[in-house]
């Protein structure tokens, strides 16, 4: 009884928006329950014409690149030793872990036979892009989970596991870059099979490479948005000059992406490009809002110090990325005169619930675990970090 009361009292102390977000999470949970009772056809607008809908387009194809921050920041800090960015490592790992965890949840809801997910290990088909992505996403979820364990062990003062984690840190970081490279591009490979279905504006043989490049800049943009939001709403230190480093990396990757995309359109695409006005408009918005304008902004000097401009530019990148992924996995696949799919109410509730769950979980992790403290020698400073994080908790 006392514990229940304590937990209730604790929950009462959460900010109002977190409490509000619990509504879509519970609504989404109910929708999932209905899905497993009455089937996919009953609660979604999916049909034989649209076997993949919102759940794949958003929960998998878009969420995975948005959670890519962890692997790039990991590579920058641990492999290239740009130690300055250390404070961004843990928040990005948390986002990565939560993102991937929820991708797995979304996939299991969408699968017809989720109880057979283990079949991918027993009957693997090496020619399937889906197998590549499934194995990589599962392994990588495990890896980010192990990386995420560090702050957890610190919180509880577990020195031995921490030391073990320190030992495997470098292999984890290396695998944690190599594996996402495979599945970020692998999601692009998915759509290479849709030869005569996906519109020429998006179909080209380097789609996997484009997916990988865009995952890098959008993953970093997410890290940026998150750092700015956390600074504004969770009273964490201002990281604007750290983010200045990111603005440079993002700007160059946007430029590389733009060059690759233009090259692909000019030399690798076949057939008419601008024959469908709606698709042309979607394409122009995607490239304008998501690539060209933010690239110009990210190349400006002012963005190194101006966190409002950073937030704007990063948001544009993320919106553009989402539109790109929807264009590839949904809009670009619609044939002329084909009925248009739109997600059903319950279907949208599930996605909304997953997004809300992500925000809530991030808030909870940030509240109870030391993810914003700056410390390189985690093991040695374990006890002091423990005190620090208690202090930090009170500050929140």
């Amino acid at each position, binding site marked *: 009884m006392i514990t229940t009361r304590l937990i209730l009292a604790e929950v009462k102390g959460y900010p109002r928006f977190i409490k509000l977000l619990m509504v879509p999470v519970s609504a989404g949970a109910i929708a999932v329950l209905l*899905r*497993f*009772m*009455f*089937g*996919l*056809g*009953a609660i979604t607008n*999916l049909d*034989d*014409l649209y*076997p*993949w809908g919102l759940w794949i387009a958003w929960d998998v194809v878009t969420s995975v690149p948005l959670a890519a921050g962890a692997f790039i920041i990991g*590579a920058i800090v641990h*492999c*290239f*030793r740009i130690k300055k960015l250390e404070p961004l490592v843990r928040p990005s790992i948390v986002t990565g872990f939560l993102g991937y965890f929820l991708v797995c949840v979304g996939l299991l809801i*969408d*699968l*017809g*036979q*989720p*109880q*057979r997910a283990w*079949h*991918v290990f027993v*009957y*693997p*088909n090496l*020619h*399937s*892009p*889906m*197998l*590549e992505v*499934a194995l990589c996403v599962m392994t990588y979820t495990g890896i980010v989970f192990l990386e995420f364990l560090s702050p957890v062990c610190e919180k509880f003062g577990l020195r031995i596991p921490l030391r073990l984690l320190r030992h495997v840190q*470098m292999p984890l*970081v*290396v695998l944690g*870059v*190599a*594996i996402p*490279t*495979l599945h970020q*591009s*692998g999601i*692009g*490979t*998915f759509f*290479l*099979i*849709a*030869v*005569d*279905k996906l519109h020429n504006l998006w179909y080209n*043989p380097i*789609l*996997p490479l484009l997916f990988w490049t865009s995952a890098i800049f959008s993953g970093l943009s997410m890290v940026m948005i998150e750092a700015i939001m956390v600074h504004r709403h969770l009273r964490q230190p201002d990281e604007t000059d750290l983010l200045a480093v990111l603005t440079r990396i993002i700007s160059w990757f946007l430029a590389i992406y733009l060059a690759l995309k233009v090259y692909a359109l000019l030399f690798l695409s076949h057939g008419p490009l601008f024959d469908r006005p709606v698709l042309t408009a979607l394409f122009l918005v995607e490239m304008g809002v998501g690539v060209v304008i933010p690239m110009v902004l990210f190349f400006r000097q002012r963005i190194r110090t101006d966190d409002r401009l950073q937030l704007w530019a990063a948001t544009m990148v993320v919106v553009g990325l989402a539109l790109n992924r929807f264009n590839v996995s949904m809009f670009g*696949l619609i044939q002329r005169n084909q*009925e248009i799919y739109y997600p059903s109410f319950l279907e949208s509730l599930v996605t909304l619930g997953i997004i809300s769950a992500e925000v809530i979980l991030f808030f909870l992790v940030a509240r109870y675990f030391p993810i914003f403290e700056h410390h390189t020698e985690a093991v040695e400073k374990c006890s002091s970090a423990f005190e620090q994080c208690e202090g930090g908790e009170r500050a929140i």
Partner: protein
Amino acid sequence: MSERTDFSMDRTFLIDLTRCTGCRGCQVACKQWNQMEAEKTRFFKGEGYQNPPAMSEHTLTRMKFRDYEKHGHNEFAFYKEMCMHCIRPACASVCPVSAFVKTPEGPVVYNPKRCIGCRYCMVACPFGVPKYQWSKALPLVVKCTGCYSRVKEGLVPACAKACPSAITYGSRKDMIDEAERRLKQWPDKYVGKVYGLEEAGGTSVLYLSELPFDELGFKKLTTRPLPTFTWAALRFVPGVFVFMSGALTFISWLTQRKERLLKERSRNSQGTQREEGGL
């Protein structure tokens, strides 16, 4: 996935649409042999006048009716829609758990015990053949089996058996020869093309028609086998993995070494300073 290169002995349907009367005997025979549920007749928006409007989890083959104008008169055209049993099937190549198999006899069959229900086959199939049990809580894919159970025993598929006039069934080589013979014998009757000869790398269902195929609703498709499109990217996977891991390990080693050297140098200089101070 099969590594066969010779498909000339694969069991193949030759469907001559000029000889089809639209009796739908094939559709009924398919339902009966596979014991599929009936579908309620209803009016629908969109193309054709057929019933049911499209293939579904209950209907593995159907006659598609389409009207067109010929010499100022409205005419009906029909064609039998079914799994094309591709030589290099896209569904088999994309399925993560190898639930689809191209059998040595020709039919592409689906193993419902393996399927995890990801629906990638439905996205991949250029002909829109695999259908899903949308009404079930734990759905599976449904598709024409080419009556594999009959073919294995030396029988002809149910639809081919029931068809009074249009379907010829035999080895792919014989069916291609027969199609070409008919094209040569009646050049004015046909449009001069065998659909399925090269589409999606070649299929085990071949069509002859008097109407242009796109008019009938057949898709214009690449002649390159679809699995080669994904394989063109997938074959780099091991290389990319080894390269990325190797490069990152090397870079980490390099940066760590640089840091260590810097540290040692500063320690050495500090050490000499301290010694000097001591003296």
